[in-house]
């Protein structure tokens, strides 16, 4: 059977009567949580001072609301850009890329006997970002987006463009640090060629796998031998610039021809 607190106990609880012992206060509170009738009685038991205070606060809040122009709606135009271009979280991979390239630039500057690490690593600079631009782990809404008509090469190119816009300035800075031995075209063109190669290969095995495979292959076939021999390969000498431009154009064209392969992102 439910035992209600007496009206006197509720009045004393409402008044904050210090004579009410702790056990009674606790039992009244427990009861009030579950009894609407007693809560209503409690509301009627408040003192005139309490009711006057509540009325005063309510009137003050009403005056503030009437005087304030109200919250402004967030401008849609600003969020639209973010929605379409920056849905991912570029900071982690950008920080990692900048740290690696910065170290490479310092080593290139202070260890002149070594081949330029900036040149050796520039082709790989955008690949972590490109891999992250479309992967289940990096994009929480991957499955939702994969079922929309916008999914395809256009979306991937848009995200890749964001990666390049962020990475190329970093490359420019690190190339400037090692300016005495670094040809800007030999930094930029291999970087673009490897980006195009990642997308093309990605249409077959997935962009994530393609990026990892190309990074491993370049490191094993070019970076390691160059460091062992302490000289740059022919691929990264000024004479190769035209070759890189041609390769970039061909890879980009082939990627565009395979546009339909990007409609279903499960192959990524």
């Amino acid at each position, binding site marked *: 059977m439910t035992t209600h607190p007496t009206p006197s106990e509720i009045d004393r609880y409402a008044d904050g009567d210090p004579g009410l012992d702790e056990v009674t206060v606790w039992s009244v509170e427990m009861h009030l949580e579950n009894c609407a009738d007693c809560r209503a009685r409690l509301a009627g038991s408040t003192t005139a001072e309490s009711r006057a205070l509540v009325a005063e606060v309510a009137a003050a809040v009403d005056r503030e609301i009437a005087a304030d122009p109200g919250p402004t*709606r*967030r401008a*849609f135009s600003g*969020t639209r850009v973010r*929605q*379409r271009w920056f*849905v991912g979280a570029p900071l982690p991979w950008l920080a990692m890329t900048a740290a690696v390239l910065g170290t490479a630039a310092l080593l290139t500057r202070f260890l002149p006997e070594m081949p330029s690490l900036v040149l050796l690593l520039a082709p790989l600079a955008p690949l972590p970002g490109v891999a992250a631009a479309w992967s289940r782990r990096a*994009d*929480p*809404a*991957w*499955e*939702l*987006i*994969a*079922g*929309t*008509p*916008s*999914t395809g090469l*256009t979306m991937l190119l848009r995200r890749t463009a964001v990666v390049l816009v962020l990475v190329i300035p970093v490359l420019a800075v690190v190339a400037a640090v090692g300016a005495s031995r670094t040809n800007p075209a030999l930094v930029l063109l291999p970087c673009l060629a490897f980006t195009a190669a990642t997308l093309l290969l990605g249409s077959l095995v997935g962009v994530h796998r393609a990026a990892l495979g190309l990074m491993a292959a370049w490191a094993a076939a070019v970076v390691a031998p160059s460091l062992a021999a302490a000289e740059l390969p022919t691929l990264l000498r000024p004479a190769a610039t035209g070759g890189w431009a041609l390769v970039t154009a061909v890879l980009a064209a082939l990627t565009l021809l395979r546009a*339909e392969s990007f*409609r*279903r*992102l*499960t*192959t990524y």
Partner: protein
Amino acid sequence: MRAVSTAETATTTHPWAVQAEALKVRAGRHLAVDGLDLRLATGVHGLLGPNGAGKTTLMRALATVLKPAGGRLTVLGRPVDGRADLRPARRALGYLPQHFGYYPRFTVREFVTYMAWLKEMPKVAIPAATQRAIDRVGLSAKADARLRTLSGGMLRRAGVAQAIVNDPQLLLMDEPTVGLDPEQRLDLRELLRDLGTDACVLVSTHLVEDVVAACTEVVLVNEGRLVWQGAPAALAAHGDDGHAGDSPAERGYSALLRRHRAAAAR
């Protein structure tokens, strides 16, 4: 993104919203859907089956996320297997995955707007469609709240809002009632019944009571195959007191599964 003509977004009717013949779909290396035949028309269809029956894989294939490994699959009158153009079907699809991922910093309105844009809705129609979808799921008061601040039930409702923002002709919802309180579940059932009057709605769930209350048809799958398809009342007729379950429909569900397993074992 290219402009989409009015003709491409116009509502078209199809005798069958979904037609699958001997459909096979892989989940990783496992053939989760293995020779499934299914036809779905307008109405609310409840997809039932035990864990591992292939429900989620089937949903992903219907949503054109997974490519069929075999058989034929037509969605809204268009083939979506092989090298077919998926865009027309995707424009008329709504999909709520089981594990619904979202961008925590987006507000509900931004998220639904973004999904409407990805669904290539006409630009001028997006703001009103977004507001309508948010209103229909009862999130009007939270429209400008960031997703990271919402409760599990509210997030689920935001997921439903993005699924229905384009007034889909085929709406696929994988476990939409997870995280909803009883009142919200009742509201969702009512919304599903409303949507099912002029669209094909397929709802995957473990809760037989949700299917009985909201669906016009039950689709029972097990081990990647169709076990039974029919009205909720007919499902109940298959069970008796000797089968597990708290309701006639649950007992019918248990009876059909047991028979299918016994037949498969022979």
